[in-house]
């Protein structure tokens, strides 16, 4: 991916640049809103990482200008403001995702990759009715799941959880992403309730199968993927 990081804080920018490069991406950096807007508008990027508070032009107005000109490069807004209405304002201004500082780098990377996948997938014809990975099959219309020939009985929430994992198969999804997208909760519970839900899902999907599909990614989250 070719990613533009618009961030005025030097240390954060360095860390983002270094981390993203290490993950195999090409990174450009702008340290103020004006330069950022110029770069974002003049070069094709796969994703933007925009700090909300920027000198020159703040992150949200930058996005609004960009969206008004028809540029819909997926953008992730970084902010030290974490309350629900700040988040809503961010999404309304044209952000595709919103991440509160400080964040784990793994969280940012997972979100960028999922965001990228979502935009790419958006143009691929009609609505998806079946999701599949290896011998795991999900029928979205009949709301049924099969592993091999054997039907898997899932509770509604487990179905949603598996659907999200399937839609992002191959990518890492973090606990926060699951809580936000499956439960629509934008706060962190003190205990790791998500782990218990994943453990249950694992029981139903991977138990009695030689090849596990749900993998734990240390320090990041989970990933549903085919064995290499």
């Amino acid at each position, binding site marked *: 991916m070719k990613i533009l990081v618009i961030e005025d*804080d030097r240390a954060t920018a360095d860390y983002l640049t270094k981390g993203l490069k290490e993950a195999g991406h090409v990174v450009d950096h702008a340290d103020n809103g004006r330069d950022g807007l110029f770069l974002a508008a003049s070069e094709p990027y796969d994703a933007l990482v925009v700090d909300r508070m920027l000198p020159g032009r703040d992150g949200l107005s930058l996005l609004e200008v960009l969206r008004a000109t028809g540029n819909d490069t997926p953008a992730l807004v970084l902010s*030290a403001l974490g*309350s*629900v209405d700040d988040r809503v304002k961010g999404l309304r201004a044209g952000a595709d995702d919103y991440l509160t500082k400080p964040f784990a780098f793994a969280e940012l990377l997972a979100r960028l990759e999922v965001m990228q996948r979502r935009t790419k997938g958006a143009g691929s014809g009609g609505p998806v009715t079946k999701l599949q990975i290896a011998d795991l099959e999900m029928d979205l219309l009949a709301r049924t799941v099969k592993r091999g020939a054997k039907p898997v009985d899932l509770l509604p929430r487990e179905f949603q959880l598996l659907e999200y994992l399937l839609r992002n198969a191959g990518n890492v999804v973090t606990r926060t992403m699951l809580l936000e997208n499956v439960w629509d*909760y934008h*706060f962190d*519970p003190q205990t790791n*309730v998500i782990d218990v*839900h994943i*453990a249950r899902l694992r029981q139903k999907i991977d138990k009695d199968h030689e090849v596990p599909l749900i993998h734990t990614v240390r320090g990041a989250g989970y990933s549903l993927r085919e064995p290499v």
Partner: protein
Amino acid sequence: MSRFSFLRTTTFRLAAFHMGLFILSVVVVLAVVYWFTAGFINRHTEETVLREVQELSNAMNDRGRIGLLRLISERAGDHRTDMIYAVASPTGEIIAGNLANWPLPNTAAGWIEFDIKNRGEPGRKRSAVAIILPVHDLGWLLVGHDMTDRYLLRGQILLGMIWAVSLALVIGVIGAVYMSRRVAERVEKINRTIDRITAGSFADRLEVTGSGDEIDRLVTKLNRMLDEIARLMLGMRQVTDNVAHDLRTPLSRLRARLELAQLEPDLPDAQAATLEQAIAEIDRLLGVFNAILTIAAAETGRARADFEPVDLSALVAEVAELYEPLAEEKGLTLELANADPVSVSGSRQLLAQLASNLVENAVKYASPGGHVQVAAGHDLASGRPLLSVADDGPGIPADQRDKVLERFVRLEAHRGTPGHGLGLSLVAAVARLHDADLLLDDHRPGMEHPGLRVSLRFPG
């Protein structure tokens, strides 16, 4: 405002009090006037009668009985006179005068009041005041005055006064009602605006009519106070936002550096573990920090502007479902009671965080193999929307319940368990934001493990 509630207003009470005083003074003034006019009529009558008696006695002294009788006949013969004259024998037979019958069966000297029959127009009853005097050798002399017209006048004066007082009373009542209504309506308007402002529309201000009266002055001062509160709130918001930014940014960098250090190849295991622990510590610190910011944000009441209808039954069901696997893993039974659908106006995210904190606590403190009960519905006693979470753990002693709602307070007995002591303060702040009454009590009173029940009663 209900139709008659103005009767309870201060203005109406004041107006009624002043009206009472006014009516009292009118009555006193009129009583004095009546006293003087009616008194004057009586005194005047007595003087006239006594003057007449004097003349008659002069005539008697000068010309004897004949002179007296002649003068009486002369005076009584005048049909226009209001004076009454009568001379009677000791047995009560009329000898002279313009009276047909002697008024009293038992005659004695002194003033009398009596009714005259058949004088002037027959059939009409007339009143009179007279003095009776003994006359030597003759019997009794009566000299009096026909009072009919004067009593009529006195009656008119009295009637007039009653009318005056009644009219004053009616005008006073109408005035009091009108005045208190007007003032009550203005006050009610102010109340409604204040309600709107406390409900979250902080930009609203109270209306100044421009009359410069005391209510206007009060409203101007209230507006100034609201401006000041708005300024402080903005300041508070800026401070929290700045703290959020200024403290979170360095923490962010610190976390980032540690994460980059983790990326180094060939890291010795001991150092890798240290780095991981350090990151975990930072995350814990950030958890505290986020909780403080959420509490601070809830306490400013800013979120009220974004309140929406929240299905409380669905919300507790979701939170219960989120924690159910965790409860099961700990061998607990999580019971959900939300058969009675209920919704409230609020912030879904904050209410979910509140419910999640309560269930998390309940799961943490419930006795091994015990129960956690999560319920939403209507309070039986008040009918208000109710959310409650109960466990069968050690509970909280009654004298420490207020304390646990304060920030960073953790009871001595629970020091060993994880948590930052902000969970219940956040619950308290979110409850306040929603105007809900928060109650902590024993779930199973009297048992060895009374358990804790936390209930929120929302405005109905």
